[in-house]
């Protein structure tokens, strides 16, 4: 794995090339390009806010849209990185069958493109959060390691799924179902306080709960993520990366014939 990682450093330009393409293919052909990429999360934000603050009336969350954004921004990044990242190897089968490069560059660049989208979304949401919640600059700094950890976690799963999908094409379909369940199993549309007491330990075993809570804590309450909290998040990111990358390297050997 060390050898593979060292080799990967030679492919920085390839990574940037793919990243530019992953970004621009979504924004291509319209001046409003970047806005289009925000349209989907914005529409979801509006829908969920309407349903859960006017129809179902979830209580004790303060400002519902900000509450929702806090959990939804990391979730939206995570789920789109998984959905789009998982199909990268299959989509680039023509390339993979004919030329060599470290295959992991493909899911990595796609995850990174989604990360950039998330940062843009955060930037857009930021003035509103500032206006309603105020801003704690020191607390915001703790979002940087939290985001690094989230990126590692998403990239790890996206890479793993991309190579699994080469062997089993219906993975794509299962990812859709899995993410849907995962979304509701994570306190994004509802607060942790609405979860029955005995279920909470189970909820905390879900890494995405920890990420959503960290974002929410910073954006909503202006509290810095604790050192212990950051350590746990980074551990999740690192362990999942190492484990998934090890599996990826094992399975990557035969993908050119399986595609």
């Amino acid at each position, binding site marked *: 794995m060390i050898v593979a990682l060292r080799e990967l450093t030679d492919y*920085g330009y390839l990574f940037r090339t793919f990243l530019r393409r992953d970004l621009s293919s979504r924004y291509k052909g319209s001046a409003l390009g970047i806005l289009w990429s925000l349209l989907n999360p914005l529409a979801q934000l509006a829908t969920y806010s309407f349903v859960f603050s006017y129809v179902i009336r979830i209580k004790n969350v303060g400002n519902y849209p900000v509450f929702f954004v806090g959990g939804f921004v990391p979730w939206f990044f995570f789920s789109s990185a998984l959905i789009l990242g998982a199909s990268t190897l299959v989509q680039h089968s023509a390339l993979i069958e004919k*030329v060599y490069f470290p295959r992991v560059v493909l899911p990595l660049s796609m995850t990174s493109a989604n990360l950039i989208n998330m940062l843009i979304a955060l930037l857009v949401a930021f003035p509103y959060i500032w206006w309603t919640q105020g801003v704690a600059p020191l607390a915001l700094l703790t979002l940087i390691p939290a985001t690094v950890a989230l990126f590692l976690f998403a990239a790890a799963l996206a890479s793993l799924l991309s190579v699994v999908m080469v062997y089993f*094409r*219906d993975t794509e379909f299962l990812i859709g179902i899995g993410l849907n369940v995962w979304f509701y199993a994570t306190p994004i549309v509802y607060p942790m306080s609405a979860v029955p007491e005995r279920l909470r330990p189970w909820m905390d075993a879900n890494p995405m709960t920890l990420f959503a809570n960290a974002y929410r804590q910073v954006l909503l309450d202006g509290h810095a993520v604790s050192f212990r909290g950051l350590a746990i998040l980074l551990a999740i990111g690192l362990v999942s990366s190492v484990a998934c990358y090890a599996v990826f390297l094992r399975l990557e050997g035969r993908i*050119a014939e399986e595609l």
Partner: protein
Amino acid sequence: MTTEPTIVVEHVRKRFRLYHRRETTLKAALLRRNRAQFEEFWAVDDVSFSVQPGETLGIFGRNGSGKSTMLKMLARILRPDAGEIAVNGRVSALLEVGAGFHPEYTAVENIFLSGAIYGLSKDELRPRVDEIIAFAQLERFADNPVKTYSSGMYARLGFSIAVNVDPDVLLIDEVLSVGDESFRARCYERMLEFRDAGKTLVLVSHDLGAIESFCDRAIWLDGGKVRAIGKPEAIVKEYVDLVTAEDEAWSRGQVGKGLVQLHQPVNRTVPIVLSGMALEGDDGSERDLFHNGEPMRIRARYEASNPVHAPSVEMTITRHDGAAVATSSSRIGGLEVGDILEGTGSIDWVLDPLLLVPGSYYVSVKLFDQTGLHVLDEQERWFRFQVRAGAYRETQGVVVLPAVWEQSRD
């Protein structure tokens, strides 16, 4: 002189699965009710060799002998199931025309893309772009998307990138066959420079002439195993002898069964039809394998249901790729066919000596009326035959021209 070999291949094996029924869904894999059914075969079976810096290795063999699989493993596209491959240095692989190109990108954009795939940075690539374009002779088309390129232009660009990214090892699979002659010559020249610079080259080719003239060492793969390894002249000859012997055996087998006709003659309501054809050697034996330098008689049989006045026959020999090699007709050749009465007969085109280079060819036959304007019957690619090296050693080009070489000193 002992140097570290650039490429070391040790007991490498690669297994492929031939799926009868393929399970590509997780559902099927989990349920396990319908297990995937496949046969395994060893595409490369216990191959070992090493290549020194500055050495050129040629790999040849029949289709399916594992040579392309071997090259793909050297290029790290496939991973061996057993054994070890160690390659030192940057590898540049040209395995397929246009591999790794984005059709919508221009030549210049593709240079950056391909270069990135080879692991180069933008700064390393920028100074090479002009040279790559110039070597590929694509100056006028550099800003057009490569999807508008011909296959020759693709090949030029691909080769030009592969040799100009400063690789230590160059792997080439047959791709030079698409370029034109002058580009091919420049490629070989560039590969010679490459070799003289102490770099390593591995060439997979059907073109035995190229292997003989260009490589320092050759490997003959047969059924995934190394059949022979050594000086190209010796093992290429061994290979050609074997293939020729097998083809002759096959050909004799066919004579007994009646000759292979690619198209059955069609009965039409014309007074005369082509009813069959045959190729004969000078001993009168019917066969479809000839050695150049010996005589070949192409016989077109006809069957007339009514008398026909002065028809003529035209025959064309085409190469396997469809290129016409020679056309002649009884009229041009000065044969007065005269009136044909009812019944059968034949008109022959006798080639003596046969001056084709080794390869496979087709014969097409047309039967014209007396004016030479109306086709009475025709058979496209009616018959296939093979030519092997006999009296002539030439393998390149289209035909052998009767000629001698001379030298003089001033």
